[in-house]
Protein backbone atom coordinates (compact mmCIF):
# COMPACT_ATOMS: atom_id res chain seq x y z
CA UNK A 1 0.00 0.00 0.00
CA UNK A 2 1.76 3.13 -1.17
CA UNK A 3 1.12 6.80 -0.47
CA UNK A 4 -1.49 7.22 -3.24
CA UNK A 5 -3.57 4.33 -1.90
CA UNK A 6 -3.45 5.86 1.55
CA UNK A 7 -4.45 9.26 0.13
CA UNK A 8 -7.40 7.67 -1.71
CA UNK A 9 -8.50 5.87 1.47
CA UNK A 10 -8.22 9.06 3.53
CA UNK A 11 -10.27 10.95 0.96
CA UNK A 12 -12.88 8.21 1.02
CA UNK A 13 -13.01 8.29 4.83
CA UNK A 14 -13.51 12.07 4.74
CA UNK A 15 -16.27 11.73 2.14
CA UNK A 16 -18.10 8.99 4.06
CA UNK A 17 -17.77 10.82 7.37
CA UNK A 18 -18.99 14.05 5.80
CA UNK A 19 -21.93 12.26 4.21
CA UNK A 20 -22.88 10.60 7.50
CA UNK A 21 -22.71 13.87 9.42
CA UNK A 22 -24.76 15.64 6.78
CA UNK A 23 -27.44 12.96 6.72
CA UNK A 24 -28.43 14.09 10.22
CA UNK A 25 -29.67 17.65 9.43
CA UNK A 26 -31.28 16.44 6.20
CA UNK A 27 -33.13 13.65 7.96
CA UNK A 28 -34.20 15.95 10.80
CA UNK A 29 -35.70 18.27 8.20
CA UNK A 30 -37.31 15.36 6.32
CA UNK A 31 -38.69 14.00 9.57
CA UNK A 32 -40.16 17.32 10.68
CA UNK A 33 -41.61 18.27 7.31
CA UNK A 34 -42.76 14.73 6.55
CA UNK A 35 -44.49 14.30 9.88
CA UNK A 36 -46.10 17.71 9.48
CA UNK A 37 -47.43 16.82 6.04
CA UNK A 38 -48.75 13.48 7.29
CA UNK A 39 -50.54 15.20 10.16
CA UNK A 40 -51.97 17.97 7.94
CA UNK A 41 -49.62 20.57 9.38
CA UNK A 42 -46.96 22.71 7.69
CA UNK A 43 -43.78 22.03 9.67
CA UNK A 44 -40.81 24.40 9.82
CA UNK A 45 -41.13 26.74 6.84
CA UNK A 46 -39.67 30.06 7.97
CA UNK A 47 -35.90 29.63 7.73
CA UNK A 48 -34.62 29.25 4.18
CA UNK A 49 -36.57 27.79 1.25
CA UNK A 50 -39.08 25.21 2.57
CA UNK A 51 -37.46 25.60 6.00
CA UNK A 52 -34.32 23.81 4.79
CA UNK A 53 -32.04 25.87 7.00
CA UNK A 54 -34.02 24.98 10.13
CA UNK A 55 -31.54 22.25 11.06
CA UNK A 56 -28.68 24.74 10.71
CA UNK A 57 -30.47 27.13 13.05
CA UNK A 58 -31.04 24.26 15.49
CA UNK A 59 -27.34 23.41 15.33
CA UNK A 60 -26.36 27.01 16.06
CA UNK A 61 -28.75 27.00 19.01
CA UNK A 62 -27.36 23.72 20.33
CA UNK A 63 -23.80 25.05 20.20
CA UNK A 64 -24.53 28.39 21.84
CA UNK A 65 -26.75 27.05 24.59
CA UNK A 66 -25.28 26.83 28.07
CA UNK A 67 -23.80 23.36 28.55
CA UNK A 68 -25.04 22.78 32.04
CA UNK A 69 -24.11 19.70 34.06
CA UNK A 70 -26.63 19.00 36.84
CA UNK A 71 -25.16 18.75 40.34
CA UNK A 72 -26.47 15.27 41.09
CA UNK A 73 -24.92 13.40 38.17
CA UNK A 74 -21.82 11.25 37.98
CA UNK A 75 -19.73 13.73 35.99
CA UNK A 76 -17.26 11.37 34.31
CA UNK A 77 -19.81 8.92 32.93
CA UNK A 78 -22.28 11.71 32.27
CA UNK A 79 -19.80 13.33 29.88
CA UNK A 80 -18.64 10.00 28.49
CA UNK A 81 -22.10 8.66 27.60
CA UNK A 82 -22.90 10.82 24.52
CA UNK A 83 -19.44 10.08 23.11
CA UNK A 84 -19.87 6.36 23.68
CA UNK A 85 -23.22 6.37 21.93
CA UNK A 86 -22.02 8.40 18.91
CA UNK A 87 -18.66 6.80 18.10
CA UNK A 88 -19.90 3.21 17.49
CA UNK A 89 -22.57 4.66 15.24
CA UNK A 90 -19.91 6.21 13.02
CA UNK A 91 -17.57 3.21 13.22
CA UNK A 92 -20.06 0.80 11.71
CA UNK A 93 -20.13 2.32 8.26
CA UNK A 94 -16.50 1.28 7.65
CA UNK A 95 -17.41 -2.15 6.30
CA UNK A 96 -20.35 -1.16 4.11
CA UNK A 97 -19.48 -1.21 0.40
CA UNK A 98 -21.08 1.60 -1.58
CA UNK A 99 -19.81 0.79 -5.10
CA UNK A 100 -17.83 -1.89 -6.91
CA UNK A 101 -14.18 -1.47 -7.90
CA UNK A 102 -12.71 1.02 -10.34
CA UNK A 103 -9.40 0.35 -12.10
CA UNK A 104 -7.35 3.42 -13.11
CA UNK A 105 -3.84 2.81 -14.56
CA UNK A 106 -3.74 -0.66 -13.04
CA UNK A 107 -4.60 0.76 -9.62
CA UNK A 108 -7.67 -0.85 -8.11
CA UNK A 109 -9.89 1.48 -6.09
CA UNK A 110 -12.29 -0.37 -3.80
CA UNK A 111 -15.28 1.72 -2.80
CA UNK A 112 -15.41 0.52 0.77
CA UNK A 113 -13.47 1.79 3.74
CA UNK A 114 -12.36 -1.65 4.93
CA UNK A 115 -13.16 -4.98 3.32
CA UNK A 116 -13.20 -7.03 6.50
CA UNK A 117 -13.74 -10.74 5.97
CA UNK A 118 -16.01 -10.74 9.06
CA UNK A 119 -18.06 -7.76 7.78
CA UNK A 120 -21.50 -8.44 9.14
CA UNK A 121 -20.23 -9.80 12.47
CA UNK A 122 -18.24 -6.58 12.92
CA UNK A 123 -21.45 -4.58 12.38
CA UNK A 124 -23.38 -6.70 14.87
CA UNK A 125 -20.70 -6.38 17.52
CA UNK A 126 -20.21 -2.63 17.12
CA UNK A 127 -23.93 -1.84 17.10
CA UNK A 128 -24.28 -3.79 20.33
CA UNK A 129 -21.80 -1.32 21.85
CA UNK A 130 -24.17 1.60 21.29
CA UNK A 131 -26.41 0.31 24.07
CA UNK A 132 -23.57 1.09 26.50
CA UNK A 133 -23.95 4.77 25.71
CA UNK A 134 -27.62 4.63 26.61
CA UNK A 135 -27.07 2.66 29.81
CA UNK A 136 -24.17 4.91 30.89
CA UNK A 137 -26.32 7.97 30.30
CA UNK A 138 -29.21 6.42 32.19
CA UNK A 139 -27.14 5.35 35.18
CA UNK A 140 -24.97 8.45 35.48
CA UNK A 141 -27.99 10.77 35.23
CA UNK A 142 -29.04 9.69 38.74
CA UNK A 143 -32.67 9.99 37.74
CA UNK A 144 -35.42 7.40 38.03
CA UNK A 145 -36.97 8.07 34.65
CA UNK A 146 -33.59 7.94 32.92
CA UNK A 147 -32.79 4.66 34.66
CA UNK A 148 -36.11 3.20 33.55
CA UNK A 149 -35.26 4.22 29.99
CA UNK A 150 -31.87 2.52 30.25
CA UNK A 151 -33.42 -0.65 31.65
CA UNK A 152 -35.97 -0.78 28.88
CA UNK A 153 -33.27 -0.18 26.30
CA UNK A 154 -31.05 -3.02 27.51
CA UNK A 155 -33.94 -5.47 27.78
CA UNK A 156 -35.17 -4.53 24.32
CA UNK A 157 -31.72 -4.75 22.72
CA UNK A 158 -31.06 -8.21 24.15
CA UNK A 159 -34.44 -9.58 23.07
CA UNK A 160 -34.28 -8.23 19.56
CA UNK A 161 -30.61 -8.87 18.82
CA UNK A 162 -31.37 -12.57 19.12
CA UNK A 163 -34.01 -12.57 16.38
CA UNK A 164 -31.83 -10.21 14.33
CA UNK A 165 -28.86 -12.57 14.46
CA UNK A 166 -30.95 -15.62 13.57
CA UNK A 167 -32.66 -13.77 10.71
CA UNK A 168 -29.22 -12.77 9.41
CA UNK A 169 -27.98 -16.36 9.48
CA UNK A 170 -30.47 -17.08 6.69
CA UNK A 171 -28.80 -14.51 4.43
CA UNK A 172 -25.33 -15.74 5.35
CA UNK A 173 -26.38 -19.31 4.50
CA UNK A 174 -27.77 -18.31 1.12
CA UNK A 175 -24.67 -16.36 0.09
CA UNK A 176 -22.26 -18.50 2.17
CA UNK A 177 -20.17 -15.48 3.15
CA UNK A 178 -20.01 -12.95 5.96
CA UNK A 179 -18.13 -10.33 3.94
CA UNK A 180 -20.53 -7.60 2.91
CA UNK A 181 -18.63 -7.08 -0.34
CA UNK A 182 -19.08 -10.74 -1.35
CA UNK A 183 -22.75 -10.62 -0.38
CA UNK A 184 -23.33 -7.48 -2.45
CA UNK A 185 -21.39 -8.96 -5.41
CA UNK A 186 -23.40 -12.18 -5.36
CA UNK A 187 -26.67 -10.26 -5.42
CA UNK A 188 -25.84 -9.23 -8.98
CA UNK A 189 -26.64 -12.75 -10.19
CA UNK A 190 -29.96 -13.50 -11.79
CA UNK A 191 -32.42 -15.48 -9.68
CA UNK A 192 -35.17 -16.17 -12.24
CA UNK A 193 -35.40 -15.06 -15.85
CA UNK A 194 -38.98 -14.08 -16.70
CA UNK A 195 -38.82 -13.34 -20.42
CA UNK A 196 -37.09 -9.96 -20.79
CA UNK A 197 -37.25 -9.23 -17.05
CA UNK A 198 -34.46 -10.73 -14.95
CA UNK A 199 -35.21 -10.89 -11.26
CA UNK A 200 -31.86 -10.38 -9.48
CA UNK A 201 -30.79 -12.57 -6.61
CA UNK A 202 -31.43 -9.82 -4.08
CA UNK A 203 -31.73 -10.89 -0.47
CA UNK A 204 -35.34 -9.78 -0.30
CA UNK A 205 -36.33 -12.24 -3.05
CA UNK A 206 -34.56 -15.23 -1.53
CA UNK A 207 -35.28 -14.30 2.12
CA UNK A 208 -38.63 -12.45 2.26
CA UNK A 209 -39.47 -13.62 5.78
CA UNK A 210 -35.96 -12.97 7.00
CA UNK A 211 -36.15 -9.47 5.54
CA UNK A 212 -39.33 -8.67 7.48
CA UNK A 213 -37.83 -9.95 10.72
CA UNK A 214 -34.60 -8.04 10.14
CA UNK A 215 -36.50 -4.84 9.31
CA UNK A 216 -38.50 -5.10 12.54
CA UNK A 217 -35.45 -5.77 14.66
CA UNK A 218 -33.56 -2.87 13.07
CA UNK A 219 -36.39 -0.60 14.21
CA UNK A 220 -35.99 -2.01 17.73
CA UNK A 221 -32.19 -1.69 17.68
CA UNK A 222 -32.27 1.95 16.59
CA UNK A 223 -34.88 2.81 19.24
CA UNK A 224 -37.25 4.21 16.68
CA UNK A 225 -40.99 4.16 16.94
CA UNK A 226 -42.84 1.77 17.41
CA UNK A 227 -39.97 0.60 19.65
CA UNK A 228 -38.87 3.90 21.18
CA UNK A 229 -39.54 2.74 24.72
CA UNK A 230 -36.16 3.96 26.05
CA UNK A 231 -37.36 7.49 25.24
CA UNK A 232 -41.11 7.11 25.72
CA UNK A 233 -42.02 10.79 26.00
CA UNK A 234 -45.46 10.22 27.45
CA UNK A 235 -44.42 7.61 30.01
CA UNK A 236 -40.88 8.36 31.17
CA UNK A 237 -40.53 11.96 29.87
CA UNK A 238 -37.45 11.54 27.69
CA UNK A 239 -35.89 8.41 29.12
CA UNK A 240 -32.15 8.11 29.06
CA UNK A 241 -31.34 11.61 27.77
CA UNK A 242 -33.62 13.34 30.26
CA UNK A 243 -30.78 15.11 32.09
CA UNK A 244 -28.94 16.16 28.95
CA UNK A 245 -29.05 19.53 27.26
CA UNK A 246 -27.44 21.55 24.48
CA UNK A 247 -24.78 19.76 22.39
CA UNK A 248 -24.70 16.67 24.62
CA UNK A 249 -28.35 16.04 23.80
CA UNK A 250 -27.58 16.79 20.16
CA UNK A 251 -24.94 14.03 20.19
CA UNK A 252 -27.57 11.49 21.30
CA UNK A 253 -29.86 12.84 18.63
CA UNK A 254 -27.13 12.50 16.00
CA UNK A 255 -26.32 8.98 17.19
CA UNK A 256 -29.96 7.99 16.64
CA UNK A 257 -29.97 9.32 13.11
CA UNK A 258 -26.57 7.87 12.23
CA UNK A 259 -27.76 4.52 13.58
CA UNK A 260 -30.80 4.85 11.31
CA UNK A 261 -28.50 5.47 8.37
CA UNK A 262 -26.38 2.44 9.24
CA UNK A 263 -29.51 0.33 9.61
CA UNK A 264 -30.76 1.47 6.20
CA UNK A 265 -27.35 0.84 4.63
CA UNK A 266 -27.20 -2.68 6.08
CA UNK A 267 -30.73 -3.44 4.87
CA UNK A 268 -29.85 -2.10 1.43
CA UNK A 269 -26.63 -4.12 1.31
CA UNK A 270 -27.99 -7.42 2.59
CA UNK A 271 -31.47 -7.45 1.09
CA UNK A 272 -31.54 -4.97 -1.79
CA UNK A 273 -28.32 -5.68 -3.61
CA UNK A 274 -26.17 -2.96 -2.11
CA UNK A 275 -24.63 -1.00 -4.96
CA UNK A 276 -26.21 -3.24 -7.65
CA UNK A 277 -27.84 -0.99 -10.24
CA UNK A 278 -31.52 -0.22 -9.95
CA UNK A 279 -33.68 -1.63 -12.76
CA UNK A 280 -33.24 0.38 -15.94
CA UNK A 281 -29.81 1.76 -15.05
CA UNK A 282 -27.81 -0.87 -16.97
CA UNK A 283 -29.91 0.00 -20.02
CA UNK A 284 -29.01 3.67 -19.46
CA UNK A 285 -25.34 2.64 -19.25
CA UNK A 286 -25.55 0.89 -22.63
CA UNK A 287 -27.27 3.86 -24.27
CA UNK A 288 -24.75 6.45 -23.05
CA UNK A 289 -22.09 7.19 -25.69
CA UNK A 290 -19.17 6.40 -23.38
CA UNK A 291 -16.31 3.95 -23.52
CA UNK A 292 -13.26 2.95 -21.55
CA UNK A 293 -12.54 4.86 -18.37
CA UNK A 294 -15.40 7.35 -18.69
CA UNK A 295 -17.85 4.43 -18.95
CA UNK A 296 -16.35 2.91 -15.81
CA UNK A 297 -16.63 6.20 -13.95
CA UNK A 298 -20.25 6.58 -15.10
CA UNK A 299 -20.93 3.04 -13.88
CA UNK A 300 -19.42 3.85 -10.46
CA UNK A 301 -21.47 7.03 -10.28
CA UNK A 302 -24.67 5.14 -11.07
CA UNK A 303 -23.76 2.47 -8.52
CA UNK A 304 -23.20 5.04 -5.78
CA UNK A 305 -26.47 6.74 -6.67
CA UNK A 306 -28.40 3.45 -6.65
CA UNK A 307 -26.94 2.71 -3.22
CA UNK A 308 -27.92 6.18 -2.02
CA UNK A 309 -31.45 5.81 -3.41
CA UNK A 310 -31.88 2.52 -1.54
CA UNK A 311 -30.49 3.97 1.69
CA UNK A 312 -32.66 7.07 1.47
CA UNK A 313 -35.73 5.00 0.74
CA UNK A 314 -35.21 3.11 3.98
CA UNK A 315 -34.42 6.30 5.88
CA UNK A 316 -37.74 7.63 4.63
CA UNK A 317 -39.34 4.34 5.61
CA UNK A 318 -38.11 4.86 9.18
CA UNK A 319 -39.80 8.27 9.22
CA UNK A 320 -42.91 6.93 7.51
CA UNK A 321 -43.37 4.11 10.03
CA UNK A 322 -42.65 6.42 12.94
CA UNK A 323 -45.62 8.62 12.14
CA UNK A 324 -47.92 5.68 11.35
CA UNK A 325 -47.62 3.17 14.19
CA UNK A 326 -48.03 4.12 17.85
CA UNK A 327 -45.62 2.94 20.55
CA UNK A 328 -45.96 -0.57 21.97
CA UNK A 329 -46.58 -1.19 25.61
CA UNK A 330 -43.47 -2.66 27.23
CA UNK A 331 -44.92 -6.13 27.84
CA UNK A 332 -46.12 -6.15 24.22
CA UNK A 333 -42.59 -5.46 23.03
CA UNK A 334 -41.25 -8.36 25.06
CA UNK A 335 -44.07 -10.70 24.00
CA UNK A 336 -43.61 -9.75 20.37
CA UNK A 337 -39.86 -10.24 20.53
CA UNK A 338 -39.71 -13.53 22.40
CA UNK A 339 -42.95 -15.29 21.52
CA UNK A 340 -43.37 -14.17 17.94
CA UNK A 341 -40.18 -12.94 16.27
CA UNK A 342 -37.84 -15.53 17.76
CA UNK A 343 -39.90 -18.59 16.68
CA UNK A 344 -40.49 -16.92 13.32
CA UNK A 345 -36.77 -16.38 12.78
CA UNK A 346 -36.07 -19.98 13.75
CA UNK A 347 -38.72 -21.09 11.26
CA UNK A 348 -37.03 -18.94 8.64
CA UNK A 349 -33.71 -20.61 9.46
CA UNK A 350 -35.19 -24.09 9.11
CA UNK A 351 -36.94 -23.22 5.84
CA UNK A 352 -33.73 -21.74 4.42
CA UNK A 353 -31.74 -24.83 5.41
CA UNK A 354 -34.30 -27.09 3.76
CA UNK A 355 -34.28 -24.99 0.59
CA UNK A 356 -30.49 -25.07 0.43
CA UNK A 357 -30.45 -28.82 1.18
CA UNK A 358 -32.85 -29.54 -1.68
CA UNK A 359 -31.01 -27.13 -3.94
CA UNK A 360 -33.85 -24.65 -4.50
CA UNK A 361 -31.61 -21.62 -3.96
Amino acid at each position, binding site marked *: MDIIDIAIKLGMIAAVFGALVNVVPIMVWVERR*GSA*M*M*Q*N*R*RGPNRIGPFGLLQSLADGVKFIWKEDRIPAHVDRFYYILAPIVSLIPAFMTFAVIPFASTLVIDGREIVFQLADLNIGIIYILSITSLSVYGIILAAWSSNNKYALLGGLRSSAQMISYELSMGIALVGVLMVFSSVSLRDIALMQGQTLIQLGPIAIPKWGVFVQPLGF*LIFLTTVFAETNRLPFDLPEGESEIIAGYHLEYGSMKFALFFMAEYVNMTIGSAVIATLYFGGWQLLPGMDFLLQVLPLSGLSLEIARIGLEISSFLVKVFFFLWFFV*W*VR*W*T*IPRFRFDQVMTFGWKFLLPLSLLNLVLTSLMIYFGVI
Partner: protein
Amino acid sequence: MLLKRKKSAVQQFYLKEIINGLFITIKQMFFGKDVTIQFPEQRRVYSPRYRGMHYIKAVNGVENCTACMLCPTVCPAECIHIEAGERPDKEKYPVKFEVDFLRCCFCGMCEEACPKDAIKLSTLYEMSTSERKVYDKDYLMEQRGNR
Protein backbone atom coordinates in the same frame (compact mmCIF):
# COMPACT_ATOMS: atom_id res chain seq x y z
CA MET B 1 -61.01 -2.85 31.60
CA LEU B 2 -59.09 -5.06 29.26
CA LEU B 3 -61.16 -5.93 26.21
CA LYS B 4 -60.19 -9.09 24.38
CA ARG B 5 -61.35 -8.86 20.81
CA LYS B 6 -61.29 -11.86 18.52
CA LYS B 7 -58.97 -11.17 15.64
CA SER B 8 -58.47 -13.10 12.47
CA ALA B 9 -55.12 -14.71 11.75
CA VAL B 10 -54.29 -12.09 9.13
CA GLN B 11 -54.93 -9.31 11.62
CA GLN B 12 -52.83 -11.00 14.26
CA PHE B 13 -49.88 -11.11 11.90
CA TYR B 14 -50.09 -7.26 11.89
CA LEU B 15 -48.39 -6.97 8.52
CA LYS B 16 -51.50 -6.22 6.49
CA GLU B 17 -52.75 -3.76 9.11
CA ILE B 18 -49.41 -1.97 9.17
CA ILE B 19 -49.36 -1.69 5.38
CA ASN B 20 -52.91 -0.30 5.48
CA GLY B 21 -51.77 2.24 8.06
CA LEU B 22 -48.78 3.25 5.95
CA PHE B 23 -51.06 3.91 3.01
CA ILE B 24 -53.32 6.08 5.17
CA THR B 25 -50.41 8.29 6.24
CA ILE B 26 -49.02 8.62 2.73
CA LYS B 27 -52.51 9.51 1.48
CA GLN B 28 -52.79 12.22 4.12
CA MET B 29 -49.36 13.46 3.15
CA PHE B 30 -50.13 14.01 -0.50
CA PHE B 31 -53.87 14.67 -0.49
CA GLY B 32 -54.59 15.89 3.03
CA LYS B 33 -55.47 19.56 3.34
CA ASP B 34 -53.31 21.59 5.72
CA VAL B 35 -55.29 22.99 8.61
CA THR B 36 -52.57 25.32 9.90
CA ILE B 37 -53.23 29.05 9.92
CA GLN B 38 -49.98 30.90 9.19
CA PHE B 39 -50.55 33.38 11.98
CA PRO B 40 -48.95 36.74 11.28
CA GLU B 41 -49.93 36.57 7.61
CA GLN B 42 -53.25 34.80 8.02
CA ARG B 43 -55.69 35.43 10.85
CA ARG B 44 -58.52 33.33 12.09
CA VAL B 45 -61.81 35.09 11.45
CA TYR B 46 -63.99 35.00 14.55
CA SER B 47 -67.73 35.39 14.72
CA PRO B 48 -68.89 39.04 14.86
CA ARG B 49 -70.33 38.26 18.30
CA TYR B 50 -66.84 37.58 19.65
CA ARG B 51 -66.04 39.69 22.72
CA GLY B 52 -62.55 41.08 22.26
CA MET B 53 -60.87 44.42 22.84
CA HIS B 54 -63.10 47.37 23.82
CA TYR B 55 -63.52 50.59 21.91
CA ILE B 56 -65.67 53.70 22.35
CA LYS B 57 -67.79 54.38 19.35
CA ALA B 58 -67.37 57.89 17.98
CA VAL B 59 -69.42 59.81 15.44
CA ASN B 60 -67.56 62.62 13.63
CA GLY B 61 -64.75 62.35 16.17
CA VAL B 62 -67.07 62.87 19.15
CA GLU B 63 -67.61 59.92 21.46
CA ASN B 64 -71.16 58.63 21.93
CA CYS B 65 -70.54 58.30 25.68
CA THR B 66 -72.45 60.63 28.03
CA ALA B 67 -70.70 59.39 31.19
CA CYS B 68 -73.93 57.93 32.58
CA MET B 69 -71.83 55.47 34.70
CA LEU B 70 -73.96 52.45 33.79
CA CYS B 71 -70.98 50.46 32.55
CA PRO B 72 -68.75 50.85 35.66
CA THR B 73 -71.82 50.03 37.76
CA VAL B 74 -72.61 46.80 35.94
CA CYS B 75 -68.98 45.74 35.47
CA PRO B 76 -68.34 42.64 37.64
CA ALA B 77 -64.58 43.03 37.45
CA GLU B 78 -64.66 46.77 38.22
CA CYS B 79 -62.22 47.52 35.49
CA ILE B 80 -63.88 50.65 34.02
CA HIS B 81 -63.07 54.03 35.53
CA ILE B 82 -64.93 57.12 34.30
CA GLU B 83 -64.61 60.74 35.42
CA ALA B 84 -67.46 62.88 34.10
CA GLY B 85 -67.16 66.47 32.90
CA GLU B 86 -69.29 69.11 31.18
CA ARG B 87 -68.99 70.44 27.69
CA PRO B 88 -69.55 74.19 26.92
CA ASP B 89 -72.99 73.24 25.59
CA LYS B 90 -73.85 71.76 29.02
CA GLU B 91 -73.61 68.22 27.76
CA LYS B 92 -72.07 65.58 30.05
CA TYR B 93 -69.04 63.76 28.70
CA PRO B 94 -66.25 61.54 30.07
CA VAL B 95 -63.05 63.45 30.88
CA LYS B 96 -61.36 60.19 31.75
CA PHE B 97 -62.39 56.79 30.41
CA GLU B 98 -60.05 54.01 31.41
CA VAL B 99 -60.38 50.25 30.93
CA ASP B 100 -57.99 47.89 32.73
CA PHE B 101 -57.79 44.96 30.29
CA LEU B 102 -55.93 42.88 32.85
CA ARG B 103 -58.92 42.93 35.19
CA CYS B 104 -61.56 42.71 32.47
CA CYS B 105 -63.26 39.35 32.15
CA PHE B 106 -64.75 40.17 28.74
CA CYS B 107 -68.31 39.39 29.83
CA GLY B 108 -69.71 42.09 27.56
CA MET B 109 -72.12 43.46 30.18
CA CYS B 110 -70.84 47.03 29.65
CA GLU B 111 -71.82 46.77 26.00
CA GLU B 112 -75.28 45.50 26.96
CA ALA B 113 -75.80 48.17 29.61
CA CYS B 114 -74.74 51.12 27.47
CA PRO B 115 -77.81 53.17 26.40
CA LYS B 116 -75.81 55.24 23.92
CA ASP B 117 -74.11 52.38 22.04
CA ALA B 118 -70.79 53.91 23.12
CA ILE B 119 -68.64 51.18 24.72
CA LYS B 120 -68.37 48.19 22.45
CA LEU B 121 -66.36 45.00 22.22
CA SER B 122 -64.55 44.36 18.92
CA THR B 123 -63.32 41.02 17.51
CA LEU B 124 -59.65 41.93 18.10
CA TYR B 125 -58.01 39.33 20.32
CA GLU B 126 -54.31 40.24 20.31
CA MET B 127 -54.01 42.16 23.55
CA SER B 128 -50.74 40.89 24.97
CA THR B 129 -48.36 43.61 26.13
CA SER B 130 -45.00 43.70 27.84
CA GLU B 131 -46.23 46.06 30.57
CA ARG B 132 -49.33 46.38 32.77
CA LYS B 133 -51.16 49.07 30.88
CA VAL B 134 -54.47 50.74 31.66
CA TYR B 135 -55.83 51.98 28.38
CA ASP B 136 -57.08 55.59 28.38
CA LYS B 137 -59.74 57.36 26.39
CA ASP B 138 -57.50 58.33 23.47
CA TYR B 139 -56.54 54.70 22.94
CA LEU B 140 -60.12 53.46 23.20
CA MET B 141 -61.41 56.17 20.87
CA GLU B 142 -59.40 54.80 17.95
CA GLN B 143 -62.02 53.01 15.93
CA ARG B 144 -60.11 49.72 15.61
CA GLY B 145 -62.20 46.71 14.81
CA ASN B 146 -65.29 48.88 14.41
CA ARG B 147 -68.49 47.07 13.59
